[in-house]
């Protein structure tokens, strides 16, 4: 097979790679904001539970959770019989832990005097969060979120172990079928770079530009 036909074959896995990455990012995004608020503002027992969640997901390799969800929970929960959804949820829950760290730091970076000023104007807590804290926290979080998307795109490759037909899996099929040991993996590596670099770079630059504009 030629390099071009190898590339087109491996590209069959791009939908799975991208959809797993972005779905898990979406889960992680919602969970991350929720966890950040719990860890910052909830009563102590809830905040401690939030901290424990983050420690658990940051301390255990995500592949272990993927295997546990698919082969373990998959026996009782129909959704996890799917290798695809097991991967999405394991990566999403881990991403929630990472993103809560990103959002927690971003929220903490908003100067306290702005919060006091908002309170002095008579804004309620939810108005302060919505109109003062979150818009600025998102800007501060942008570079971190870019890195997180890149991490998810790379870690989505673990899904191939469960049998998901992603970029890595298609590269591995070429290796097995044609005994090509270098080209398929190099092509896969290049595809991952093409996917991760622009988005991480764009969000990093956008974040830096906005931070500079608003002096955040």
């Amino acid at each position, binding site marked *: 097979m030629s390099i071009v036909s190898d590339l087109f074959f491996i590209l069959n896995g791009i939908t799975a790679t991208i959809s797993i990455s972005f779905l898990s990012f979406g889960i992680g995004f919602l969970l991350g904001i929720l966890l950040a608020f719990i860890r910052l503002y909830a009563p102590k027992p809830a905040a401690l539970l939030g901290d424990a969640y983050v420690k658990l997901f940051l301390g255990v390799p995500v592949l272990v959770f993927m295997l546990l969800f698919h082969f373990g929970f998959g026996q009782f929960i129909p959704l996890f019989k799917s290798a695809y959804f097991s991967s999405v949820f394991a990566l999403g829950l881990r991403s929630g832990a990472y993103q809560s760290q990103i959002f927690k730091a971003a929220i903490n970076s908003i*100067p306290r*005097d*702005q919060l*006091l*000023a*908002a*309170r*002095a*104007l*008579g*804004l*309620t807590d939810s*108005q302060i969060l919505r*109109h*003062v804290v979150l*818009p*600025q926290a998102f*800007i501060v979080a942008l570079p971190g979120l870019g890195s997180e998307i890149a991490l998810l795109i790379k870690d989505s490759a673990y899904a191939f172990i469960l049998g998901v037909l992603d970029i890595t899996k298609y590269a591995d099929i070429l290796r097995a079928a044609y005994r090509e040991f270098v080209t398929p993996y190099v092509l896969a590596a290049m595809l991952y770079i093409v996917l991760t670099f622009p988005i991480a770079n764009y969000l990093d630059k956008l974040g830096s530009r906005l931070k500079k*504009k*608003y*002096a*955040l």
Partner: protein
Amino acid sequence: MSSETILEGQDIWKIYGSLEVLRGVNISIRRGQTKVIIGPSGSGKSTLLRILGLLEPPTRGRVVFKGRDVYSEGLDLAKIRSKIGFVFQQPSLFRHLTALENIKLGPKLVLGMSEKEAERRAREMLKLVHLEEFADYYPAQLSGGQQQRVAIARALAMNPDILLLDEPTANLDIELTWEVIEVMEELARKGITMLVVTHEIPFAREVADEICFISDGVIQECNEPEEMIRNPQTPRARIFLKRLLGEV
């Protein structure tokens, strides 16, 4: 003078652990009055202002707004805060919003004004602080003095009954300080009720109805500006004013 008392602190105590920051402070501000508080660092000035601005509760004592005890009557704090304008030492502008948007936010969200009404109000306030041409500037594009004037405009846009200013010129150089002082003097002449923590004695002399000296968490004395500056009654006030006026 028999005008209405807008804001009153009665026997205000603030204690952090074993530290007594305020020890039974009594203070009241009548409508149209400009009252200035002076005192050394750590004397409790800012804490007193934050308590009167309902930004933190006193450990003991009462904060009375227009005749109603705010805490014991369980009044809606956010609603009353919107009637007490507060300007901090740092301008504290929302950095992702332009000057105009900073000023519009309160009238829209708290007073329920329409976008158009809020914008008209915000532009009026910018005019009042002589910054109408800076409406679309972000805080990062404004000088410290301009930011502080926007902060004053933002507080005034809520049409407050009283404006509390906590050393609004403390972090500004001399030129920028005067920009802010001029605006404050104009407000005083317009009859806006103000309680100002400041060490700008010329400002106090010009517009204050009364200067109070606070030290060690206690208001040691209050007097008319000239009397306070020329003839302070307590030894601490005498030493403090001498240092402040550069006579030592």
